[in-house]
């Protein structure tokens, strides 16, 4: 029996020796000499010539410097896992996705592209947001969890909104979109951090707050010109804005220059008759060239400039269909573009 056991032992050893030539798995195809020398089966760094860049996981950064065993926990190299989370624990609690390379590099865990990350997110960093600590916005007890953040100003700045007293934002019902007055690239809330560009305070509008916000009301003010300038509109006599039916949107004719001058009325081309384009462009100096009655701009005359003779015009238009009459209104009716044809 002992002999038989010995025989079996020998046979097993023989075949085991044949079958166990490679501990690297059945699909391993590299030559032994890629890693080993005749000195033994340990890795001989002097002869090691395997190019890891030919695998699905090219080595870069710190991965070049770690022990092979940290990833290849068994000698079957193909069993090594290749996802970040297989080796690196996720302290972000799955709030930053599974691809570490979106923020980190293989060289360092240092996040050196904070601005780039934010450009590709919902909130590019500018102004004071650029100098803030990450944890001022990404608040979490672990400091590294990135919960879904609101990107509306008030999501983070409710405390400032409620604490402001001059003027009192809550009392006066200010918009909770801070960027209306405080641009997102501002460094401070007041001074250069205040932006009234939605209603530029320049030229004739270089005013004190109280000039418009007379009652201390900072919201709901009507930004239309007439809200402040209706009296001037009503009083205008040259031309008489009311009689002439001018719109009370001052911006259509006036700039922010003080004194309401110069003024233009470019809508004239579309609304009535082309004087800023076509044949009449540059042919007039003053509104009163045509509008002979300054108190009523509905009245106009073509004949002040066009020195026609009625007899000759009558003859020229004789026999034309559509009727003809020698007066300015009829001139306009047939020549709406100011052309002879």
């Amino acid at each position, binding site marked *: 029996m002992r002999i038989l056991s010995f025989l079996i032992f020998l046979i097993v050893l023989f075949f085991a020796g044949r079958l166990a030539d490679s501990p690297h798995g059945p699909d391993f195809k590299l030559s032994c000499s890629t890693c080993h020398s005749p000195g033994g089966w340990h890795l001989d760094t002097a002869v090691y010539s395997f190019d890891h860049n030919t695998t699905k996981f090219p080595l870069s950064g710190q991965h070049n410097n770690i022990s092979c065993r940290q990833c290849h926990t068994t000698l079957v190299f193909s069993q090594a896992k290749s996802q970040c989370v297989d080796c690196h624990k996720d302290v972000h609690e799955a709030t930053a996705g599974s691809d570490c390379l979106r923020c980190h590099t293989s060289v360092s865990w240092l996040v050196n592209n904070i601005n780039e990350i934010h450009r590709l997110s919902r909130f590019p960093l*500018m102004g004071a947001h650029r*100098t803030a600590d990450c944890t001022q916005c990404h608040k979490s007890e672990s400091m590294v969890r990135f919960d879904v953040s*609101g990107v509306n100003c008030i999501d983070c700045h409710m405390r400032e909104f409620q604490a402001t007293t001059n003027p009192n934002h809550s009392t006066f019902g200010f918009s909770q979109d801070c960027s209306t007055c405080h641009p997102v690239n501002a460094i401070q809330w007041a001074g250069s951090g205040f932006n009234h560009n939605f209603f530029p305070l320049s030229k004739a509008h270089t005013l004190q707050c109280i000039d418009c916000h007379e009652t201390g009301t900072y919201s709901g003010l009507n930004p239309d010109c007439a809200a402040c300038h209706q009296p001037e509109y009503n009083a205008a006599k040259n031309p008489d804005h009311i009689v002439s039916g001018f719109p009370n949107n001052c911006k259509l004719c006036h700039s922010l220059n003080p004194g309401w001058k110069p003024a233009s009325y470019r809508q004239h081309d579309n609304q009535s008759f082309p004087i800023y384009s076509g044949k009449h462009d540059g042919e007039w100096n003053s509104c009163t060239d045509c509008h002979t009655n300054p108190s009523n701009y509905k009245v106009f005359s073509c004949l002040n400039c066009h020195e026609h003779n009625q007899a000759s015009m009558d003859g020229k238009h004789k026999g034309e269909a559509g009727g003809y009459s020698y007066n300015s209104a009829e001139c306009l009716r047939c020549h709406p573009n100011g052309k002879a044809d």
Partner: protein
Amino acid sequence: MKQLVVIIFVILIGVELFGQSVSENLPGQVSYVSSQNVYVKFKSTEGISVGDTLFMPSQGNLIPALKVSNLSSSSCVCIPLPGIILSASDLILARPNSQVKQTEAITQKPEIKVPVVISQTDTTKTEESKAPEFKQRIKGSISAYSYSDFSNTTASNSQRFRYTFSLDARNIGNSKFSVESYISFKHKVGEWIDVKENIFNALKIYTLAVKYDLNKTTQISAGRRINQRLSSIGAMDGIQIEKNLKNFAMGAVVGSRPDYTNYGFDPNLFQYGAYLAYNSKSASTFTESSLAFMQQTNHSNTDRRFVYLQHSNSLLKNLYFFGTLEVDLYKLNIDTINGNTPQNTFNPTGVFLSLRYKLTKNLNVSGSYDARKNVMYYETFKSSIDSAFERELRQGFRLQASYRITRDLMFGIQSGYRYLKSDPHPSKNLYSYLTYSQIPGVNISMTLSATYLESNYMNGKILGGNLSRDFFQGKFSTGMGYRFVDYRLPESFITIKQNIAEMNLSWQMAKNISFSLNYEGTFEQQNSYNRFYAQFRKRF
């Protein structure tokens, strides 16, 4: 019968050593010379023993040159005798022992005739066979980070420091005990009072646990630990146990979650849960799935109850899929008049799906979708339950493609879309790049990039270029870049142009010591912002 055994044995060995022959002087050749050893390759080392002397021919004589210290079936590891200098390919001669002696040796010590190759391997195998059940493996690192931000604006400059300690000591002293930790300490210059007020404002312990291997398939841990199968839960204080059965793993956790204000220890936040995982792998495919259930409480009241499913696979060649799904099972209906009522629910709070596919050798595409709500802890965050955006679903898509035009030229494009219901506008971006690796002659890599983005309050275009180069076989790497940024803030009628300079360097000071430094300067018409970030890291 005894004779039969000897005959069979000799036959076996004979087959094993088939083709080998023994001669008076066995020729060999130096295959490799190391600082201590000379390796000599023979057709066969039959007849050569450890301690034998090998010779080199010189002017018709044989001069003793090497002493055999180890050998395999075809090679000898030798120690050169004093004064002997050899190089690869040099001829070496051995004087093998007689066949009789070999037979004697075989008969007396049959075990040494086991057809394994190198005696060092024998040693290794012996060691392995005698190796402890658990083998010690220790790794870790200490790091120091510095974050400096300063500008010419009225915003205060800041200097922050962060230190981290990471340790993964498995089976210490080949025992069943392991320790793992990951701890960070962060503080800002001038704000030390925050640290003095509460050390946990600065000290964050993500992992500090002792693990014990009950056996090869069962582990139990105590302390604070992040469980990779429950990564969305984060660190857990308490006991965790896992049992592996072939392709399956099952585990349970019981303890508490960290304090929700400072990440300290809070036993009032009791929680427990269990998970089941399944892994399978073939030569070219794999699947990994896990399903977890968790119940979290605050002062014994249910705070949150949910299930978490994670799955990844590579069922097709060159395809990788990863997905997670988190579903809340508990809801507390807030009613200040009649009292709150708990309710079972099935409310997905987080979905993440990603797919990566290598279409051809040179073309890779990937895409991901994620939809996430902030977690609602009904007992813990009662005060903020009404915060609208905290309950909203933020959705995002991300698509990427890269194409290797030539060996060194790569083009890539990436687009993203993110939207939260309360956002005024969806955020969109489109990023493309062209990279030329290793420009001939200068070995510099160059990347040109362009970005277009639309966010809630601004639109922007960014053009950039970046150069990088490695020195000293990659031990020292440098890079520099420039970006031109054109932002428009339509709501504020503002246009912002920025010139951004970037520089970075990394230095592998030693195998386990690295240093990296990054600079970014942003220059606007009036304002400029500068940022220096540095890291020093020592691994062990």
